[in-house]
């Protein structure tokens, strides 16, 4: 069936005119109509626009144009501004917000001829690890709808896993691509900080946020990254470095590749989870890679460090939501203070408020040095640890998450327990490094992810390592029951 094909396969059929983009789009739209109610993947569906985009892509194809994403449908995380389409960021605050422009990521993918099916559900303002903080209700995990899909890009992950689209965009501030990719059994790539433009991506924590991709294979992710990556003069933190040919790099043999095993990641790891990682290492050594143990001594500081830096930045980034120019405004404000207090009080959910308050606290006079400055120091130490490790190895490897998908409602009332879910992913954000999560097996019938992290701008190497693994295994081909 069309929905099980990978991007490369779809592109070939589209180019050969064996299928049309309109046909593919209709197929996925009817699948969405049937399957979405059980998953709650979408905040906004854009079927008419999708069919229009598809027809335009077909016209380009008919004119002889080709392209790896031309005519390929996708879903955007609702954090990306899409011109003329509601962009809610999962929040009541922006429930009425129609973005007046396209994010750079959206514009680039549009230019490549992709077809937008709709906007994916997410944790409110990307703050969450279970997709339960969304104003639009939780997304369900297609492997078991009593479980969470992970977050914050839960909608994008679940949609990709359920074969509602061949790929989806996401953002990763502390693991928001890799963690849900792991929990839903798909491939999730978080590029190097600065590799993909943040312009038009609603900011959570500016120094950590990075746009990336969910796909069903590393090779598909490579094709998408190719279009997303590159310097953007509108984002001062995007990096003006050449973009390599990611797809071309996929054929490189792994012989001699040095893979580092993160000692800290294996300490206290659940045995069945650890066994899956061991199996994956066996695959890699079979492919010619060498493994050695490396240590990131300051990695245990990453969760507390993150929960100072990210809230600090978010407390400032979310100040613009004040009920004055856009977004939710309370009814009949008495005065300015009332307008601020009620608009923000009503517009933001509990987790967002918690982080704004935490962030405001750590930046306050008298606490700044003890929290914010100390966290910046810890961040530098963690970054240095990675740098030292990458002097010895090409990539580091470990589990993406400590456990498979947990039950809906299981952790939502215990923020610290929820935050610990990102213990393995946060380090890469603090250090600005690229990371990828790929499916590596099942525990209790639920998928688990293997995480690879590389030095800055090592996406080609990472994707190749993931691709080689996927050539040797078929974990990434498993589909959840009912979504085959």
């Amino acid at each position: 069936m069309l929905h099980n094909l990978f991007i490369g396969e779809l592109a070939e059929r589209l180019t050969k005119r064996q299928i049309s983009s309109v046909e593919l789009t209709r197929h996925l739209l009817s699948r969405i109509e049937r399957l979405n109610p059980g998953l709650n993947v979408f905040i906004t569906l854009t079927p008419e626009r999708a069919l229009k985009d598809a027809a335009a892509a077909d016209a380009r194809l008919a004119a002889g144009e080709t392209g790896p994403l031309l005519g390929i449908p996708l879903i955007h995380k609702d954090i990306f501004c899409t011109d003329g389409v509601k962009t809610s960021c999962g929040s009541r605050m922006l429930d009425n917000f129609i973005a007046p422009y396209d994010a750079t990521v959206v514009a680039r993918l549009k230019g490549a001829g992709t077809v937008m099916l709709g906007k994916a559900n997410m944790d409110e303002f990307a703050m969450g690890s279970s997709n339960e903080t969304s104003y639009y209700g939780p997304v369900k995990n297609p492997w078991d709808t009593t479980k969470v899909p992970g977050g914050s890009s839960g909608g994008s992950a679940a949609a990709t896993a359920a074969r509602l689209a061949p790929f989806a965009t996401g953002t990763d501030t502390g693991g928001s691509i890799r963690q849900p990719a792991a929990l839903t059994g798909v491939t999730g790539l978080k590029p190097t900080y600065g590799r993909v433009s943040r312009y038009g991506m609603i900011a959570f924590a500016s120094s950590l946020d990075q746009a990336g991709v969910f796909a069903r294979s590393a090779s598909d992710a490579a094709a998408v990254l190719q279009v997303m990556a590159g310097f953007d003069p509108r984002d001062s933190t995007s990096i003006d470095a050449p973009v390599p040919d990611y797809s071309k790099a996929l054929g490189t043999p792994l012989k001699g590749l040095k893979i580092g095993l993160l000692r800290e990641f294996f300490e206290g790891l659940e045995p069945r989870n650890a066994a899956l990682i061991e199996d994956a290492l066996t695959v890699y050594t079979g492919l010619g890679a060498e493994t050695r143990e490396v240590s990131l001594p300051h990695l245990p500081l990453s969760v507390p460090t993150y929960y100072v830096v990210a809230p600090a930045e978010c407390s400032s980034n979310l100040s613009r939501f004040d009920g004055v120019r856009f977004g939710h405004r309370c009814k009949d404000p008495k005065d300015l203070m009332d307008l601020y207090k009620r608009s923000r009080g009503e517009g933001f959910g509990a987790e967002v408020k918690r982080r704004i308050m935490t962030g405001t606290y750590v930046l306050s006079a008298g606490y700044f040095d003890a929290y914010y400055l100390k966290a910046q120091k810890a961040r530098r130490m963690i970054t240095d640890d990675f740098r030292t490790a990458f002097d010895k190895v090409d990539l580091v490897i470990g589990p993406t998450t400590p456990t498979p998908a947990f039950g809906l409602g299981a952790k939502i009332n215990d923020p610290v327990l929820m935050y610990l879910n990102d213990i393995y992913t946060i380090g890469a954000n603090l250090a600005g490094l690229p990371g990828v999560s790929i499916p590596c097996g099942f525990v209790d019938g639920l998928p688990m992810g293997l995480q690879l992290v590389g030095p800055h701008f090592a996406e080609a190497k990472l994707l190749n390592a993931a691709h080689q693994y996927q050539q040797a295994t078929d974990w990434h081909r498993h589909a959840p029951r009912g979504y085959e």
Partner: protein
Amino acid sequence: MSNWEVVIGLEIHAQLATKSKIFSGSPTAYGAPPNTQADLVDLGFPGVLPVLNQRAVQMAVKFGLAIDASVAPRSVFARKNYFYPDLPKGYQISQYELPIVARGSLKVMLDDGTVKTIGITRAHLEEDAGKSLHEGLANATGIDLNRAGTPLLEIVSEPDMRSAKEAVAYMKKIHTLVRYLEICDGNMQEGSFRCDANVSVRPKGQEKFGTRAEIKNLNSFRFVEKAIQYEVARQVELIEGGGTVVQETRLYDSDKDETRSMRSKEEANDYRYFPDPDLLPVEIDAAFIASVRASLPELPDQKAARFAKDFALSAYDAGVLSASRELGAYFEAVIAGVGAGHAKLAANWVMGELSSALNRDNIDIENAKVDPKQLTGLLLRIVDATISGKIAKEVFEAMWSEGKPADAIIEAKGLRQITDAGAIEGVIDAVMAANPAQLADYRSGKDKLFGFFVGQVMKATGGKANPAQLNELLKSKLGGGNA
């Protein structure tokens, strides 16, 4: 009062004369209809990001070099967080711990001619906020974000000034400097140049500073002077009456000529400054500094020194004539015409008749109705004794109102000076004949009557008799030289 010493520091906000805003591509022109010069970045829309305008950086560096400051090889933009409707993002992007310019100084000439050096702590780049509008809006506040994101250079002085007059002299010097550098248009009515004054008093001889009050948003030299004077008097009276000054922000009401409390230190915001993660640190290398240095114009102090030396002018005259680039250029154009030997004459005319005409009609020197070439034409007629200095003033007025060259007016009005000795003698004879009594008195020793005869002759010639010649001839005739 005389037992108290006044301590003043100024924070001057100079709007940088860039075409577009500091972090967006919107134009900065003043006076457009509300919200027509604000794009998504200025409006603080979700997802947008700031991109630093390199022209603003260049201008800040220019200023730094002009005040002999150190230009930071690495400076950092920070967010100053507070809620206000005209602040779209809920934070202002400014520089906090690492400003682009630090530790400079400026020499200021005081009224008594002494020169005082005022320290400049720092100058940093930041964005301006928008404006709240209340006029014509019933029960509502309008927000105009045209000004939001306009680049500002905030210039912070040391608490080095000891009187309102010193503060004004310093502010005027900064005003001159930023206009020389062409980094700010200096327009105070439009708010392009304004300041906050930190004012405190302490008993003379005490080292420790008194508690200061900050007077916000002063947008004229006169207001700066009056506000400081009021504030000093208020603080002294308060302390002498047994009270204490509280640290607070005050507003100056120019209608009532008083300052009023706006908010106290306790009510002050905690701005929660932290480095803006959307912007990279500004890195400035030696090559960039060298290129900016090469683009620096002659600075006011350099020009004044050159005027004093080359044209033998007093320090005061040289200072006045170099107070603006345009005035200096005008003066030099006149010198080019009349010759450096007549520099004092040119200086007197530029600082005298020309300046008062400009002030009277409230126009800029670029639009003077008598241009340097025309003024040169007039001065040459004084130099060659065609007209006297007194007549020249009359000619100047006519030139100003009629826009004609000096020679045309001299001819048309018949103002050419009488230098023919015979003609002057004829008039003297007639005057002597008509005033026999005065003549007799003079000859009997009343020397003071000499002036009377000068006046009579001038009256009879319509002021055109060459004064030097007249003096000489009159002296000899009155003395009895009745040849």
